[in-house]
């Protein structure tokens, strides 16, 4: 099986979120970047598990500059065989998806994996876009995936429950919690990763259809009102009369 895993780079979950003086750009100063947890913990690890069980190869694809190579190396250390980096500063989701779709079409993969969303822009769009551009079925928010020959059985998260679907390869899937367990790369993996190839390819021509023009911080919360633990009637009254939520 040929598996392609889309990986992106995001600020660490504890990173302080701030912007430049004009509030038009994310301030990356002092921020540690990681592989998007959904891409790493769920999509990539499941792809590596499938390779271990059924044979095949796992290729990573990332759209970005050379400063993304550290994140890509981590993916190689976790167990991917090789990587393709489309050399382009990040763009709108549709632009990025067009880059990934070009790679996906070119490689003839059986499954294209991505995370359910990135923890920075929280878009959850890339998987569906790549699927449409490649005319493939797309299963979003998958919490399990089992292969039987070329047929997959996938559970996907829906409102208040799960839906189990069947689909034949090739397809695109976005991975949510439950798909796999986080793997910490071992020393051997890290050593091997250094020798695995990262192929850099030029971007295909595509425009940005949307742009972020500004950022703001959420409105600050008013001071927390402390309630006497002996007087829960008071809390109920405030929720009803002041906050008007019950």
């Amino acid at each position, binding site marked *: 099986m040929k598996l392609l895993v889309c990986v992106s780079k995001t*600020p660490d*979950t*504890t990173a302080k*979120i701030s*912007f430049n003086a004009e509030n038009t750009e994310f301030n990356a100063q002092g921020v540690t970047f990681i592989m998007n947890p959904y891409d790493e913990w769920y999509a990539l690890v499941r792809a590596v598990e499938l390779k271990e069980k059924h044979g095949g190869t796992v290729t990573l694809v990332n759209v970005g500059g050379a400063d993304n190579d550290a994140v890509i190396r981590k993916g190689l250390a976790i167990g991917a065989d090789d990587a393709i980096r489309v050399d382009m500063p990040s763009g*709108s*989701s*549709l632009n990025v*998806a067009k880059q990934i779709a070009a790679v996906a079409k070119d490689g003839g993969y059986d499954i294209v994996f991505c995370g359910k969303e990135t*923890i*920075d*822009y*929280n*878009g*959850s*769009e*890339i*998987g*569906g*876009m790549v699927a*449409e551009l490649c005319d493939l*079925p*797309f*299963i979003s928010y998958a919490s399990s995936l089992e292969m039987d020959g070329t047929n997959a*059985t996938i559970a996907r*998260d*829906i*409102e208040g*429950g799960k*839906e*189990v*679907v*069947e*689909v*034949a390869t090739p397809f695109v899937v976005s991975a949510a*919690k*439950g798909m796999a367990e986080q793997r910490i790369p071992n020393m051997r993996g890290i050593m091997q990763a250094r020798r695995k190839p990262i192929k850099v390819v030029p971007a295909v021509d595509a425009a940005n*259809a*949307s*742009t*972020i*023009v500004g*950022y*703001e911080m*959420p409105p600050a919360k008013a001071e*927390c*009102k*402390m*309630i006497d*633990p*002996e007087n*829960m*009637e008071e*809390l109920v009254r*405030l*929720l*009803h009369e002041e*906050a008007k*939520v*019950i």
Partner: protein
Amino acid sequence: MSVLVFAEQQGGELKKAAFEAVTYGKKTADVLGVDCKALVLGSASNAAELGKYGAAEVLTVSDASLDGFDGSVYTSAIAQAAEAAGASVVVLMHSAKGKDLVGRLAAKMDAGSAPGVNQLPTNDGAFRVKKNVFSGKAIAEIEISSANKVISVMGNSFQPEATGADAPVNELSVSLPAARISVKSVDKVTGSVPLPEAELVVSAGRGMKGPENWNIIEEMADILGAATACSRPVADIHWRPHHEHVGQTGVAIRPNLYFAIGISGAIQHLAGVNSSKVIVVINKDPEAPFFKAADYGVCADLFDVVPKLNEALKKFKAGA
């Protein structure tokens, strides 16, 4: 030109989130000076009611291939309806289906997109909308410059506003591709309120000491008609099911009221819940970071306070 809203039905009926989306679509149409139309895939007994929330016309597509959910079939139906309605702006709900469709439809229509918006577009020539980013730690303003635009609207951001009368419902004939995804089973948690759409949420963390103590949390959720949620470690050690895990790496929610009981308020937890309108924190540690994000706080042992709170809520419900 018009704005087309894909109003999702559930089991043959439109629910509140669909009315919210159409209210949003109508207001967006007003900003753009065009009309608003709604699309229902499958049938909904109350489809005409979308007119009250601003749809000038309701289009429906009934086709057996829409019974199971395959995003490419839905995308094809919505794109054809947008064409028929002369719509260059399509509004989806930011639901499980909406999140699945937003990217696919944007690619199909070669449209700029904004998933999970929570404010109306600007009204100054440019089309700009806002959405939460960095898991709720900031808000981004996105400008969509392409002719076609696809956005999905966050649940519970807009209250449905009924002003008009029922709209005409017209069946649209479209040609749909064959489904490639077949649905084998749908397993919904029955009897309880689904978390992503809940207006009231009672959530508890490691401070509960063990799964056997959750009866007081479930009792509270019962009294309030609330959904239950939990912190990540609680789901990881299997005290509670995974679908209850909220936060940056779990479900992101924005209920009207969020009770955080025995949860410390780690940044990754806050990221998924800090858009809640009102937050109540019960924690015995006065230094718990959650108090900084709370509207109301009770600093005490939860095993003392929650039963008392439940009694007070019962009394309130009996009187209300």
